[in-house]
């Protein structure tokens, strides 16, 4: 059986990649994907803990996260389409109307 630490390490690596993408990428779609990556990294950790501890709560939580992520994707992509229409660009640097 694969030890839990492997799963957790993979989860941490995926989460870290998600953070880096979230912070450093300029394309909104990429940032969106980075967020999904972080969510799925957390999901992986949940499932791993659930299996290791023999409890079902972690897996239930994963379903919640998937549902929320789906809703978030629907709303978020709607916003992205609007931004793309109005700004002719997907670059977040240009979404700066609130800047002083």
């Amino acid at each position, binding site marked *: 059986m694969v030890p839990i630490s492997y799963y957790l390490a993979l989860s941490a690596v995926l989460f870290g990649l998600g*953070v880096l993408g*979230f*912070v*450093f990428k*300029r394309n909104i779609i990429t*940032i969106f994907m980075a967020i999904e990556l972080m969510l799925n990294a957390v999901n992986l950790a949940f499932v791993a803990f659930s299996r290791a501890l023999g409890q079902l709560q972690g897996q239930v939580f994963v379903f919640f996260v998937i549902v929320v992520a789906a809703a978030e994707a629907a709303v978020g992509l709607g916003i992205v389409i609007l931004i793309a229409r109005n700004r002719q660009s997907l670059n*977040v*640097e240009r*979404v*700066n*109307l*609130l*800047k*002083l």
Partner: protein
Amino acid sequence: MFVLDHLWIIPLLPLLGAALNGIFGRNWPRAATNSVALGTTGLSFLATAELAREFFGLAASQIPWTHSYFTWIAAGTLRADYALQVDQLTLLMLLIVTGVGWLIHLYSTGYMHDDAGYRRFFTYLNLFMFFMLTLVLAANYTLLFVGWEGVGLCSYLLIGFWFLKKTATDAGNKAFWVNRVGDFGFLLGMFLLFRQFGTLDFATVFDKASAMPAETGGVGILTAACLLLLMGATGKSAQIPLYVWLPDAMEGPTPVSALIHAATMVAAGVYMVARSHVLFLHAPLAMTAVATIGTLTAFFAATIALVQTDIKKVLAYSTISQLGYMFLGCGVGAFGAGVFHLMTHAFFKALLFLGAGSVMHSLGGEQDMRRMGGLYKAIPWTYGTMLAATLAIAGTPGFSGFFSKDAILLAAHDGPYSNAFLYWLGVLTAGITSFYMFRLLFLTFHGSPRYDEHSVHVHESPSNMLVPLVVLAILSVAGGWWAAPHLFGGADLFERFIGPVLGSSGTAAAGTLLEALLGAPVIAGIVGFLLAWWLYIRRPEAPAEMAKSLNALYRLVSGKYFIDELYGAVIVRPLVAISTSVLWHGIDERGIDGAVNGIAQGAGEFGERVRHLNSGNTRTYATWVVFGAVLLTIVLVWMRG
């Protein structure tokens, strides 16, 4: 007994007039403004006449008649009522204020006829009447002080009546500030009296004070209080050292000079001293101070009047000088004579000012006597009435000023507080008075015209200005006959009238006025007249030559002894300098403004730094979110551990 029970009617009527004209009169025609202003003061005069009728029906034990209407201030042990009182002194003052006041109101309808501020003028004038009547009717020092400050306010408003003129507003400010100095002393004196007697009601204070021994040995509490009250009186009545505001006050319209700065308000100081005579009689040192200040002022101001060329300035210094006589009378114990002179002075000085106003009116506003002359044919009524007033102020036997001035000098000579130095200075001043008044008369009405006869159309004033002149002229001539039997060794009827309040001057036994008739004051007056006649009728070129040969002296006197400049250098300029550099630039700008602005600026600078966090850059926000999440995780882990 109606008016005696409702004394408040007398002062409230002019207040009603001021309120009606001031609040509702914006679009009223002249006639409405006139009838309100003259009607209320006229009714006030009639009420005073009715009061006099009722007053003489009172038994001696009922005088002073005091009536308290409501409690105005009650704080701790201090209780000040809106309480009015009537005694002979009050009655006399009421008659002077309402009578002369009404005449001057009437005169003003002619004098101010073309002024844009007509309604405002009468509003202020009525308001003044209200405060002045409050002052003389008050039954305690607190209420007297209300009137005292109120007349000061109206004086300020009316001096600066033509407020677009810088000199007028400056003069108003000067009068206000100089009076503040005096009022400060008055207030301290009131505090001292309250500490000593526990009340400020006249009746109680005077009762308790008369039970105290006279402070012959030095400065006791009564002496201190009297000196402080005197300080207030020097401010209001323009005595040394606070007289400097009165000459400048001539910037106001001439009826104001007549009413406020000659007949009534400036006499308030004399009235207050006479009212407090019980205190002063227990403080010989204060009496000496009153007499000395009065005589020195009388002399000093008279010398300045010698060389003034502005007709109103001559009269202003003359007023200061005559007020000095009144103080001399009070200071030598002849309070009755002082008040008598107050009355006659109200008649003839109001007349002189109104006459001067009539002269200015006829010459289109000219005030400089060097551009007058030879007017007696053109304006005979003005000339005749002013001649009567001049004879009165110069102390011509038979005229009112003779009786009152000689009663004062007689008391200075023979009275219980007699003082040879003050007497002779007073006599000398009488001579100077006669000289400068005839100088004024000769320069204005006699000699050859010095105005431009082609451009100035000289005309006599309208009848509503002449009627007050004539009435005042009759009073100036006859006002002194009250005391006439005294001439022949009989009783001084005026003194008998006022005696129950002010006591006797103590000269009745020592001499009669007939002796005074041939005495020094009259001779001094005649010498003054002859000198004026010689210099201004006989040899009109002589004054200029004299001014040249006595150049230094002439410049000193015509510069008014440079007292204004002295006050400016010693008091005003250091005060302004300290206020500017320390109070303004230091405490106000650095301290108070610095604290307020410093806090605001600190908040602003902090915000300036912090606002860069809110850059509007989405990726920066993302970084902060990550940073916050990491920080939160670390804190949570650390707390668990």
